[in-house]
Protein backbone atom coordinates (compact mmCIF):
# COMPACT_ATOMS: atom_id res chain seq x y z
CA UNK A 1 0.00 0.00 0.00
CA UNK A 2 1.08 3.54 -0.69
CA UNK A 3 1.75 5.83 2.23
CA UNK A 4 2.24 9.51 2.95
CA UNK A 5 5.56 9.59 4.76
CA UNK A 6 6.13 13.32 5.07
CA UNK A 7 4.66 16.73 4.44
CA UNK A 8 6.68 19.69 3.28
CA UNK A 9 5.59 23.33 3.39
CA UNK A 10 7.23 26.22 1.65
CA UNK A 11 6.67 29.63 0.10
CA UNK A 12 7.00 29.65 -3.69
CA UNK A 13 8.15 33.21 -4.38
CA UNK A 14 8.84 33.73 -8.11
CA UNK A 15 11.93 35.84 -7.39
CA UNK A 16 13.50 32.77 -5.74
CA UNK A 17 13.22 31.00 -9.09
CA UNK A 18 14.83 33.97 -10.80
CA UNK A 19 17.66 34.01 -8.24
CA UNK A 20 18.34 30.31 -8.88
CA UNK A 21 18.09 30.60 -12.65
CA UNK A 22 20.39 33.64 -12.70
CA UNK A 23 22.92 32.07 -10.29
CA UNK A 24 22.41 34.67 -7.61
CA UNK A 25 21.94 32.29 -4.69
CA UNK A 26 25.25 33.29 -3.16
CA UNK A 27 24.57 37.02 -3.20
CA UNK A 28 24.15 38.64 0.22
CA UNK A 29 20.47 39.24 -0.33
CA UNK A 30 19.68 35.63 -1.23
CA UNK A 31 22.20 33.68 0.84
CA UNK A 32 20.10 33.49 4.02
CA UNK A 33 17.04 32.37 2.03
CA UNK A 34 18.80 29.43 0.43
CA UNK A 35 20.69 28.57 3.62
CA UNK A 36 17.31 27.79 5.13
CA UNK A 37 16.88 24.99 2.61
CA UNK A 38 20.31 23.37 2.87
CA UNK A 39 19.29 20.78 5.41
CA UNK A 40 16.01 20.23 3.53
CA UNK A 41 17.91 19.24 0.42
CA UNK A 42 19.93 16.81 2.50
CA UNK A 43 16.75 15.51 4.13
CA UNK A 44 15.10 14.94 0.74
CA UNK A 45 18.10 12.95 -0.46
CA UNK A 46 18.01 10.81 2.64
CA UNK A 47 14.23 10.39 2.47
CA UNK A 48 13.55 10.15 -1.24
CA UNK A 49 9.86 10.00 -2.18
CA UNK A 50 8.55 7.85 -5.00
CA UNK A 51 5.99 10.53 -5.80
CA UNK A 52 5.43 14.12 -4.70
CA UNK A 53 1.83 15.31 -4.46
CA UNK A 54 2.42 19.02 -4.88
CA UNK A 55 -0.31 21.46 -3.83
CA UNK A 56 0.13 24.93 -5.30
CA UNK A 57 -1.85 27.65 -6.98
CA UNK A 58 -1.78 28.63 -10.58
CA UNK A 59 -1.02 32.37 -10.89
CA UNK A 60 -3.15 33.16 -13.96
CA UNK A 61 -0.94 30.90 -16.04
CA UNK A 62 -2.68 27.65 -17.00
CA UNK A 63 -6.06 29.08 -16.07
CA UNK A 64 -7.25 32.40 -17.45
CA UNK A 65 -10.58 33.97 -16.56
CA UNK A 66 -12.21 31.67 -19.11
CA UNK A 67 -12.16 28.79 -16.66
CA UNK A 68 -11.25 28.72 -12.99
CA UNK A 69 -11.30 25.34 -11.19
CA UNK A 70 -11.43 25.40 -7.40
CA UNK A 71 -9.39 22.18 -7.23
CA UNK A 72 -7.59 20.77 -10.29
CA UNK A 73 -5.58 17.56 -10.23
CA UNK A 74 -2.98 16.91 -12.92
CA UNK A 75 -3.57 13.41 -14.28
CA UNK A 76 -1.35 13.81 -17.34
CA UNK A 77 2.00 12.21 -18.09
CA UNK A 78 3.94 15.47 -18.13
CA UNK A 79 3.66 19.17 -17.51
CA UNK A 80 5.87 21.79 -19.14
CA UNK A 81 7.16 24.83 -17.25
CA UNK A 82 5.12 27.81 -18.41
CA UNK A 83 6.22 31.06 -19.95
CA UNK A 84 4.89 33.55 -17.42
CA UNK A 85 6.05 36.48 -19.47
CA UNK A 86 9.78 36.21 -18.78
CA UNK A 87 10.17 33.02 -20.87
CA UNK A 88 9.86 29.55 -19.33
CA UNK A 89 12.09 28.74 -16.36
CA UNK A 90 15.11 26.65 -17.42
CA UNK A 91 14.09 23.59 -15.43
CA UNK A 92 13.17 20.05 -16.46
CA UNK A 93 9.73 19.04 -17.63
CA UNK A 94 7.65 17.74 -14.70
CA UNK A 95 6.78 14.07 -15.11
CA UNK A 96 3.41 13.12 -13.67
CA UNK A 97 2.14 9.88 -12.20
CA UNK A 98 -1.08 9.33 -14.18
CA UNK A 99 -2.02 6.06 -12.45
CA UNK A 100 -1.76 7.35 -8.88
CA UNK A 101 -3.27 10.69 -9.87
CA UNK A 102 -6.28 9.00 -11.47
CA UNK A 103 -6.64 6.76 -8.44
CA UNK A 104 -6.59 9.72 -6.05
CA UNK A 105 -9.00 11.62 -8.29
CA UNK A 106 -11.49 8.77 -8.34
CA UNK A 107 -11.27 8.16 -4.61
CA UNK A 108 -11.46 11.82 -3.65
CA UNK A 109 -14.42 12.52 -5.96
CA UNK A 110 -16.18 9.60 -4.32
CA UNK A 111 -15.46 11.28 -1.00
CA UNK A 112 -17.45 14.31 -2.23
CA UNK A 113 -14.67 16.59 -3.42
CA UNK A 114 -15.57 18.03 -6.79
CA UNK A 115 -12.24 17.94 -8.56
CA UNK A 116 -11.43 19.03 -12.07
CA UNK A 117 -9.23 16.50 -13.91
CA UNK A 118 -6.54 18.08 -16.04
CA UNK A 119 -4.53 16.13 -18.57
CA UNK A 120 -2.90 19.06 -20.27
CA UNK A 121 -1.50 22.09 -18.52
CA UNK A 122 1.66 24.07 -18.04
CA UNK A 123 2.95 24.65 -14.54
CA UNK A 124 4.19 27.97 -13.19
CA UNK A 125 6.53 29.12 -10.43
CA UNK A 126 4.05 27.96 -7.80
CA UNK A 127 5.06 24.40 -8.62
CA UNK A 128 8.59 24.71 -9.96
CA UNK A 129 10.07 27.02 -7.29
CA UNK A 130 9.43 24.55 -4.43
CA UNK A 131 10.99 21.78 -6.53
CA UNK A 132 14.04 23.95 -7.19
CA UNK A 133 14.33 24.86 -3.51
CA UNK A 134 14.38 21.27 -2.31
CA UNK A 135 15.99 19.52 -5.27
CA UNK A 136 18.50 22.17 -6.28
CA UNK A 137 19.42 23.16 -9.78
CA UNK A 138 18.60 20.66 -12.52
CA UNK A 139 19.54 20.92 -16.15
CA UNK A 140 16.40 21.55 -18.18
CA UNK A 141 17.30 18.98 -20.83
CA UNK A 142 19.90 16.57 -19.42
CA UNK A 143 18.51 16.72 -15.90
CA UNK A 144 15.26 15.58 -14.34
CA UNK A 145 13.34 16.04 -11.13
CA UNK A 146 14.05 13.20 -8.68
CA UNK A 147 10.61 11.60 -8.98
CA UNK A 148 7.18 11.98 -10.56
CA UNK A 149 5.07 14.89 -9.32
CA UNK A 150 1.28 15.14 -9.20
CA UNK A 151 0.33 18.81 -9.56
CA UNK A 152 -2.69 19.88 -7.54
CA UNK A 153 -3.81 23.43 -8.26
CA UNK A 154 -6.04 25.39 -5.88
CA UNK A 155 -7.86 28.58 -6.87
CA UNK A 156 -6.69 31.47 -4.74
CA UNK A 157 -6.78 34.07 -7.53
CA UNK A 158 -10.47 34.86 -7.81
CA UNK A 159 -12.36 35.13 -4.55
CA UNK A 160 -13.63 32.94 -2.95
CA UNK A 161 -10.82 30.47 -2.51
CA UNK A 162 -11.87 27.24 -0.80
CA UNK A 163 -12.06 27.64 2.96
CA UNK A 164 -9.29 26.49 5.28
CA UNK A 165 -11.70 23.92 6.68
CA UNK A 166 -12.43 22.55 3.21
CA UNK A 167 -8.71 22.31 2.45
CA UNK A 168 -8.04 20.55 5.73
CA UNK A 169 -10.80 18.00 5.00
CA UNK A 170 -9.43 17.48 1.51
CA UNK A 171 -6.05 16.56 2.93
CA UNK A 172 -7.68 13.79 4.92
CA UNK A 173 -9.46 12.51 1.81
CA UNK A 174 -6.18 12.51 -0.10
CA UNK A 175 -4.52 10.42 2.60
CA UNK A 176 -7.33 7.86 2.46
CA UNK A 177 -6.99 7.75 -1.31
CA UNK A 178 -3.24 7.24 -1.17
CA UNK A 179 -3.56 4.52 1.44
CA UNK A 180 -6.01 2.60 -0.74
CA UNK A 181 -3.52 2.38 -3.62
CA UNK A 182 -2.20 -1.15 -4.00
CA UNK A 183 1.34 -0.48 -5.11
CA UNK A 184 3.89 0.28 -2.43
CA UNK A 185 4.77 3.93 -2.90
CA UNK A 186 6.39 6.43 -0.63
CA UNK A 187 4.44 9.67 -1.16
CA UNK A 188 5.29 13.19 0.05
CA UNK A 189 2.64 15.84 0.13
CA UNK A 190 3.78 19.43 -0.24
CA UNK A 191 1.77 22.52 0.58
CA UNK A 192 3.10 25.73 -0.93
CA UNK A 193 2.49 29.49 -1.09
CA UNK A 194 2.45 32.20 1.55
CA UNK A 195 3.43 33.30 4.06
CA UNK A 196 2.40 36.92 4.69
CA UNK A 197 2.63 39.06 1.58
CA UNK A 198 0.68 41.60 -0.40
CA UNK A 199 1.51 42.37 -4.00
CA UNK A 200 -0.98 45.12 -4.67
CA UNK A 201 -2.00 48.66 -3.86
CA UNK A 202 -0.90 51.00 -1.12
CA UNK A 203 -0.50 48.11 1.31
CA UNK A 204 1.99 46.25 -0.93
CA UNK A 205 4.94 44.90 1.02
CA UNK A 206 2.95 44.03 4.12
CA UNK A 207 4.67 41.46 6.32
CA UNK A 208 3.30 40.22 9.62
CA UNK A 209 6.02 38.24 11.34
CA UNK A 210 4.17 37.68 14.62
CA UNK A 211 1.04 36.49 12.88
CA UNK A 212 3.01 34.14 10.62
CA UNK A 213 4.81 32.55 13.55
CA UNK A 214 1.63 32.12 15.56
CA UNK A 215 -0.09 30.65 12.52
CA UNK A 216 2.73 28.14 12.05
CA UNK A 217 2.59 27.15 15.72
CA UNK A 218 -1.14 26.63 15.50
CA UNK A 219 -1.03 24.76 12.20
CA UNK A 220 1.41 22.28 13.70
CA UNK A 221 -0.21 21.83 17.10
CA UNK A 222 -3.90 22.60 16.61
CA UNK A 223 -4.58 22.34 12.89
CA UNK A 224 -8.36 22.05 13.23
CA UNK A 225 -8.50 25.45 14.93
CA UNK A 226 -6.12 26.84 12.35
CA UNK A 227 -8.37 25.51 9.58
CA UNK A 228 -11.37 27.26 11.10
CA UNK A 229 -9.94 30.71 10.51
CA UNK A 230 -11.98 32.67 7.97
CA UNK A 231 -10.47 34.14 4.82
CA UNK A 232 -10.73 37.68 6.15
CA UNK A 233 -8.17 36.89 8.85
CA UNK A 234 -5.61 36.06 6.20
CA UNK A 235 -6.42 39.12 4.09
CA UNK A 236 -6.39 41.52 7.00
CA UNK A 237 -3.43 40.13 8.93
CA UNK A 238 -1.24 38.47 6.30
CA UNK A 239 -1.93 40.54 3.19
CA UNK A 240 -4.15 39.90 0.23
CA UNK A 241 -1.86 37.16 -1.10
CA UNK A 242 -1.41 35.59 2.36
CA UNK A 243 -4.58 33.62 1.55
CA UNK A 244 -2.27 31.15 -0.25
CA UNK A 245 -1.62 29.64 3.19
CA UNK A 246 -4.90 27.70 3.03
CA UNK A 247 -3.01 25.32 0.74
CA UNK A 248 -0.71 24.34 3.60
CA UNK A 249 -3.77 22.97 5.37
CA UNK A 250 -4.25 20.38 2.64
CA UNK A 251 -0.82 18.93 3.38
CA UNK A 252 -1.38 19.20 7.12
CA UNK A 253 -4.74 17.40 6.85
CA UNK A 254 -2.97 14.51 5.16
CA UNK A 255 -0.82 13.78 8.24
CA UNK A 256 -1.92 10.64 10.11
CA UNK A 257 -2.55 12.33 13.47
CA UNK A 258 -5.74 13.72 11.96
CA UNK A 259 -8.74 11.40 12.10
CA UNK A 260 -12.29 12.57 11.36
CA UNK A 261 -11.15 16.18 11.34
CA UNK A 262 -9.57 16.10 14.77
CA UNK A 263 -6.15 15.53 16.22
CA UNK A 264 -6.33 11.97 17.49
CA UNK A 265 -2.71 10.89 17.37
CA UNK A 266 0.66 12.23 18.45
CA UNK A 267 1.67 15.46 16.70
CA UNK A 268 4.00 15.08 13.73
CA UNK A 269 7.71 15.56 14.26
CA UNK A 270 9.09 18.91 13.13
CA UNK A 271 12.19 17.93 11.17
CA UNK A 272 12.91 21.47 10.11
CA UNK A 273 11.46 24.92 10.53
CA UNK A 274 12.63 28.10 8.86
CA UNK A 275 11.38 31.65 8.57
CA UNK A 276 12.97 34.58 6.80
CA UNK A 277 12.02 38.08 5.70
CA UNK A 278 12.20 39.12 2.92
CA UNK A 279 12.36 37.36 -0.39
CA UNK A 280 11.20 40.05 -2.77
CA UNK A 281 7.79 41.03 -1.32
CA UNK A 282 7.29 37.94 0.77
CA UNK A 283 7.89 36.32 4.14
CA UNK A 284 9.42 32.92 3.45
CA UNK A 285 8.18 30.08 5.64
CA UNK A 286 9.29 26.48 5.43
CA UNK A 287 8.52 23.37 7.42
CA UNK A 288 9.10 19.64 7.19
CA UNK A 289 6.81 17.38 9.18
CA UNK A 290 7.06 13.61 9.52
CA UNK A 291 4.41 11.41 11.12
CA UNK A 292 5.31 10.70 14.75
Amino acid sequence: MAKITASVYTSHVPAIGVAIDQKKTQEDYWKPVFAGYDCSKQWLQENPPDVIFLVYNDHATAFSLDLIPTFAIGTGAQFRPADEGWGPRPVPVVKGHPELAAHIAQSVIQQDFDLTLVNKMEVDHGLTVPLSLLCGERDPLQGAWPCPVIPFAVNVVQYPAPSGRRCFALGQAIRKAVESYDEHLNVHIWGTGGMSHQLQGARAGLINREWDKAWLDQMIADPAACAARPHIDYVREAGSEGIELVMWLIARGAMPDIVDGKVQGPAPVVKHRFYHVPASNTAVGHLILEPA
Partner: protein
Amino acid sequence: MPLDKPYLDVPGTIIFDAEQSRKGYWLNQFCMSLMQAANRARFKADERAYLDQWPMTEEQKQAVLARDLNWCMRTGGNIYFLAKIGATDGKSFQQMAGSMTGMSEQEYRDMMIKGGRSIQGNRYLGEDGDAQPQRQPQGKR
Protein backbone atom coordinates in the same frame (compact mmCIF):
# COMPACT_ATOMS: atom_id res chain seq x y z
CA MET B 1 -24.19 41.74 -5.14
CA PRO B 2 -25.75 41.19 -1.75
CA LEU B 3 -23.16 38.69 -0.50
CA ASP B 4 -21.17 39.65 2.53
CA LYS B 5 -17.93 41.38 1.57
CA PRO B 6 -15.98 41.62 4.81
CA TYR B 7 -12.87 42.68 2.88
CA LEU B 8 -14.03 46.14 1.82
CA ASP B 9 -12.60 47.87 4.90
CA VAL B 10 -9.00 46.75 4.42
CA PRO B 11 -6.93 49.79 3.41
CA GLY B 12 -5.05 49.84 0.09
CA THR B 13 -6.46 46.48 -0.93
CA ILE B 14 -8.83 45.37 -3.67
CA ILE B 15 -10.02 41.77 -3.42
CA PHE B 16 -10.44 40.19 -6.84
CA ASP B 17 -13.95 38.84 -6.56
CA ALA B 18 -16.56 38.05 -9.20
CA GLU B 19 -17.49 41.71 -9.57
CA GLN B 20 -13.89 42.79 -10.19
CA SER B 21 -13.40 39.79 -12.43
CA ARG B 22 -16.32 40.77 -14.63
CA LYS B 23 -15.14 44.35 -14.80
CA GLY B 24 -11.60 43.37 -15.68
CA TYR B 25 -12.32 40.42 -17.94
CA TRP B 26 -10.79 41.75 -21.18
CA LEU B 27 -8.00 43.63 -19.47
CA ASN B 28 -6.90 40.44 -17.76
CA GLN B 29 -7.34 38.32 -20.87
CA PHE B 30 -5.17 40.82 -22.77
CA CYS B 31 -2.52 40.32 -20.08
CA MET B 32 -2.69 36.54 -20.56
CA SER B 33 -1.87 36.98 -24.24
CA LEU B 34 1.54 38.34 -23.21
CA MET B 35 2.56 34.85 -22.15
CA GLN B 36 3.54 34.25 -25.77
CA ALA B 37 6.79 35.77 -26.96
CA ALA B 38 5.31 36.67 -30.35
CA ASN B 39 2.54 38.65 -28.69
CA ARG B 40 5.00 40.42 -26.42
CA ALA B 41 6.93 41.47 -29.50
CA ARG B 42 3.79 42.74 -31.23
CA PHE B 43 2.75 44.64 -28.11
CA LYS B 44 6.16 46.27 -27.77
CA ALA B 45 6.25 47.22 -31.42
CA ASP B 46 2.99 49.18 -31.19
CA GLU B 47 1.29 49.15 -27.83
CA ARG B 48 -1.74 51.13 -28.85
CA ALA B 49 -2.39 49.03 -31.95
CA TYR B 50 -2.08 45.84 -29.96
CA LEU B 51 -4.42 47.09 -27.25
CA ASP B 52 -6.96 48.15 -29.85
CA GLN B 53 -7.38 44.51 -30.85
CA TRP B 54 -8.99 43.85 -27.46
CA PRO B 55 -12.49 44.92 -26.41
CA MET B 56 -11.12 46.75 -23.38
CA THR B 57 -12.44 50.09 -22.22
CA GLU B 58 -10.49 53.18 -23.22
CA GLU B 59 -9.72 53.73 -19.55
CA GLN B 60 -8.22 50.25 -19.26
CA LYS B 61 -6.04 50.91 -22.28
CA GLN B 62 -4.89 54.24 -20.84
CA ALA B 63 -4.09 52.59 -17.53
CA VAL B 64 -1.97 49.98 -19.31
CA LEU B 65 -0.18 52.56 -21.47
CA ALA B 66 0.55 54.59 -18.34
CA ARG B 67 1.79 51.45 -16.56
CA ASP B 68 -0.27 52.61 -13.61
CA LEU B 69 -1.02 49.34 -11.88
CA ASN B 70 -3.28 50.91 -9.26
CA TRP B 71 -5.34 52.37 -12.06
CA CYS B 72 -5.36 49.01 -13.83
CA MET B 73 -6.63 47.39 -10.64
CA ARG B 74 -9.40 49.92 -10.20
CA THR B 75 -10.63 48.94 -13.66
CA GLY B 76 -10.73 45.24 -12.73
CA GLY B 77 -7.15 44.11 -13.23
CA ASN B 78 -5.66 41.45 -10.98
CA ILE B 79 -1.99 41.52 -10.04
CA TYR B 80 -1.29 37.96 -11.26
CA PHE B 81 -2.57 38.94 -14.68
CA LEU B 82 -1.02 42.42 -14.66
CA ALA B 83 2.32 40.82 -13.80
CA LYS B 84 2.52 39.72 -17.44
CA ILE B 85 2.81 43.39 -18.45
CA GLY B 86 5.61 43.86 -15.96
CA ALA B 87 7.32 40.72 -17.22
CA THR B 88 7.09 42.05 -20.78
CA ASP B 89 8.79 45.24 -19.56
CA GLY B 90 11.47 43.19 -17.80
CA LYS B 91 10.28 44.24 -14.36
CA SER B 92 10.41 42.07 -11.25
CA PHE B 93 7.46 41.45 -8.95
CA GLN B 94 9.15 43.67 -6.39
CA GLN B 95 9.36 46.53 -8.87
CA MET B 96 5.72 46.05 -9.79
CA ALA B 97 4.47 45.89 -6.20
CA GLY B 98 6.58 48.85 -5.19
CA SER B 99 5.28 50.91 -8.10
CA MET B 100 1.82 50.87 -6.52
CA THR B 101 2.94 52.58 -3.32
CA GLY B 102 4.45 55.82 -4.56
CA MET B 103 7.78 54.82 -3.03
CA SER B 104 10.94 54.74 -5.11
CA GLU B 105 12.35 51.34 -5.99
CA GLN B 106 15.10 51.85 -3.43
CA GLU B 107 12.73 53.02 -0.71
CA TYR B 108 10.46 49.99 -1.22
CA ARG B 109 13.41 47.61 -1.32
CA ASP B 110 14.79 49.10 1.88
CA MET B 111 11.42 48.78 3.57
CA MET B 112 11.30 45.09 2.65
CA ILE B 113 14.86 44.47 3.88
CA LYS B 114 13.94 46.08 7.17
CA GLY B 115 11.13 43.54 7.59
CA GLY B 116 8.42 44.82 5.32
CA ARG B 117 5.46 47.09 5.85
CA SER B 118 4.10 47.04 9.37
CA ILE B 119 0.61 45.76 10.05
CA GLN B 120 0.20 48.46 12.70
CA GLY B 121 -2.52 50.85 11.65
CA ASN B 122 -3.03 48.99 8.40
CA ARG B 123 -5.72 46.49 9.36
CA TYR B 124 -8.82 48.67 9.01
CA LEU B 125 -9.68 51.72 6.99
CA GLY B 126 -9.64 54.73 9.28
CA GLU B 127 -6.57 53.79 11.28
CA ASP B 128 -3.37 55.71 10.76
CA GLY B 129 -0.94 53.25 9.14
CA ASP B 130 1.18 54.12 6.12
CA ALA B 131 -1.16 52.29 3.72
CA GLN B 132 -4.16 54.43 4.62
CA PRO B 133 -5.66 56.65 1.89
CA GLN B 134 -4.84 59.87 3.74
CA ARG B 135 -1.15 58.97 3.59
CA GLN B 136 -0.89 58.31 -0.15
CA PRO B 137 1.27 58.40 -2.11
CA GLN B 138 4.05 57.18 0.11
CA GLY B 139 7.75 57.75 -0.36
CA LYS B 140 9.91 60.82 -0.25
CA ARG B 141 9.60 61.75 -3.89
